[in-house]
């Protein structure tokens, strides 16, 4: 019993294959406009694919000559907005799914009370949606989606519209109710991926750029998006003797060789990336001499305060220095600088996931 989708949507440049195991929660991440929400739309039946098919537990959701309308898919979609029906009480909102699927009034209410309790919102049962706070409304929306007993649950940035103080509490509750449940969660937030998902799939321009467990992606990011999440510098290119030759999209002069520690299974000429921590970078205003490190000449773009130190951004790279060092060096946007990093601090590994 699985879910799989293999579909294309031309006008959004989407071309995607994705499969979920029983009980697996996948986080769909990526830049804005990468097509994450369109994927949910395709699965829920709110968008029609130009190509491909999707199958849930052996039932085709769509495919060549096939189309199951949204209400027959058993796919619930929870969005940023709670979208509780304003004229119904909280209890009736949660009972809406079971009622629509033909359950009796009393059975539907019993089911609604159960899920309200699971969502830690049992005390809200008799309230009207208009009288709820954002966090309360989202709890009820989660209970409503779960009460519909979907075979697949889709969550579109479920915590994005909530107060920073409320989001962690709801996230903890979601972690509990999503455990062992098949779900796809679209998110920008690393914490959602870490705490809610078994696997992360990164979309870039409508295609899967990278996937793996959150731990794998953070330890060895392969796209600029995950490198940003992990707070690492990432240079893409090809493996060469002793390190990596920077490629065209790396932001470095083509042909620059970055010395680093190569992963064992890496072959010369294979597409690879080099990753290092901003804290491992030393910053100079003149070329440092006589040390066995990588020295990259850069133009400083921005200086950003970051807890206790200053982040010096230059193109796709960043270096972490103390505020005192930043002042002493006289760094300023537009000024030239040299980023130096020891070869032992740079890990070079394949750009593609094995298998």
């Amino acid at each position, binding site marked *: 019993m699985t879910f799989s989708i293999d579909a294309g949507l031309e006008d959004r440049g989407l071309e995607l294959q994705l499969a979920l195991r029983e009980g697996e929660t996948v986080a769909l991440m990526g830049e804005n406009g990468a097509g994450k929400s369109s994927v949910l739309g395709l699965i*829920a*039946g*709110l968008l029609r694919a130009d190509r491909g098919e999707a199958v849930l537990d052996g039932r085709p959701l769509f495919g060549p000559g096939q189309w199951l*309308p*949204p*209400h*027959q*898919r*058993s*796919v*619930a*979609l929870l*969005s940023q*907005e709670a*979208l509780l*029906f*304003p*004229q*119904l009480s909280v209890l009736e909102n949660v009972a*809406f*799914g079971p009622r*629509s*699927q033909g359950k009796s009034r009393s059975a539907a209410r019993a089911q609604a009370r159960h899920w309200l309790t699971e969502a830690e919102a049992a005390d809200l049962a008799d309230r*009207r*949606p*208009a*009288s709820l706070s954002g966090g309360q409304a989202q709890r009820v929306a989660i209970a*409503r*989606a779960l009460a*519909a007993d979907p075979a697949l649950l*889709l969550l579109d940035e479920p915590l994005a519209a909530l107060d920073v103080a409320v989001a962690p509490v709801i996230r903890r509750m979601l972690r509990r109710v999503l455990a062992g449940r098949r779900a796809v969660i679209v998110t920008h937030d690393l914490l959602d991926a870490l705490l809610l998902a078994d696997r992360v799939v990164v979309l870039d321009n409508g295609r899967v750029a990278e996937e793996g467990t959150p731990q794998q992606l953070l330890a060895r990011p392969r796209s600029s998006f995950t490198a940003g999440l992990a707070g690492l510098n990432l240079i893409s290119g090809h493996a060469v003797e002793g390190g990596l030759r920077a490629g065209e999209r790396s932001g470095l002069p083509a042909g620059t060789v970055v010395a680093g520690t190569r992963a064992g299974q890496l072959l010369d000429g294979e597409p690879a990336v080099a990753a290092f921590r901003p804290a491992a970078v030393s910053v100079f205003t003149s070329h440092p001499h006589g040390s066995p490190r990588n020295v990259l000449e850069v133009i400083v773009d921005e200086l950003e305060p970051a807890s206790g130190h200053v982040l010096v951004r230059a193109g796709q790279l960043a270096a972490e220095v103390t505020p005192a060092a930043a002042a002493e060096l006289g760094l300023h946007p537009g000024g030239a600088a040299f980023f130096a990093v020891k070869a032992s601090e740079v890990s070079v590994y394949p750009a593609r996931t094995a298998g």
Partner: protein
Amino acid sequence: MTNRDAMAAASRVAGRGGGRSGRSAPVGLPLWVFAGALAGALLIVLPLLAMALRTNWSGFLPLVTSSSALAALGLSLRTAAASTVLCVLLGTPLALVLARARFRGLKLLRALVLLPLVLPPVVGGMALLYTFGRRGLLGEAFEVAGIGIAFSTAAVVLAQTFVALPFLVLSVEAALRTAGTKFETAAATLGAAPGTVLRRVTLPLLLPSLASGTILCFARALGEFGATLTFAGSLAGVTRTLPLEIYLQHETDPDAAIALSMLLVGTAVVIVALTYSRTARPGSGGAT
């Protein structure tokens, strides 16, 4: 002197929102805007006032309770109620299709359906005559079946529905577009079939706009004159509604015409007040 005081008072009101402390102070409007507004308001209020002044109040009750007046009033209320029901039954599906369905020619359909809003009612009456009249497009078939529509009470109802329908369609369609489809989408992904979505989600969200649309329809039907006269004629007790009665009485008994007019004005005021009190409470479906 008094004139200048009045101007000063007006500018205080205009400029500082009444000057009561603690109230929000809007930017204010230039005085000429108030002058224009006053002229506009007078254009509407003054004629009504003039008619009220000409009303023979001592004879008011006998005038509006004469048998012909009561017959016309009763006919008006019955036909307006019937055409309002028709408007709701036909206009709601029409608005749903215009707001939600997607097919070729939808824009054209929308323009045609709203045509009665801008068409002179007399033209509407003629169009109905050439459809349902004895020699009309459908009329001949009806005639064979033994049903004569033109110049009957049914014709009055048809004429009123023809002119009032766009009011309901506009009001409901606007509400549908404002509400958007996100609640309906949420309901569908929870497993609700289209019929359930319509009954439990869409229609409850539409209730306020349906109410105001219904009231507007009733008002428009009650005041219908041109299409009724052309298509249904002016047969006492059968097709002579209140506006037609007023028009006839105006020739022979102006006092009665004025009294009946005041009756319609009163009804209209009540209707407008009802409509506004509905729209002034947008959250009527929310918390109590």
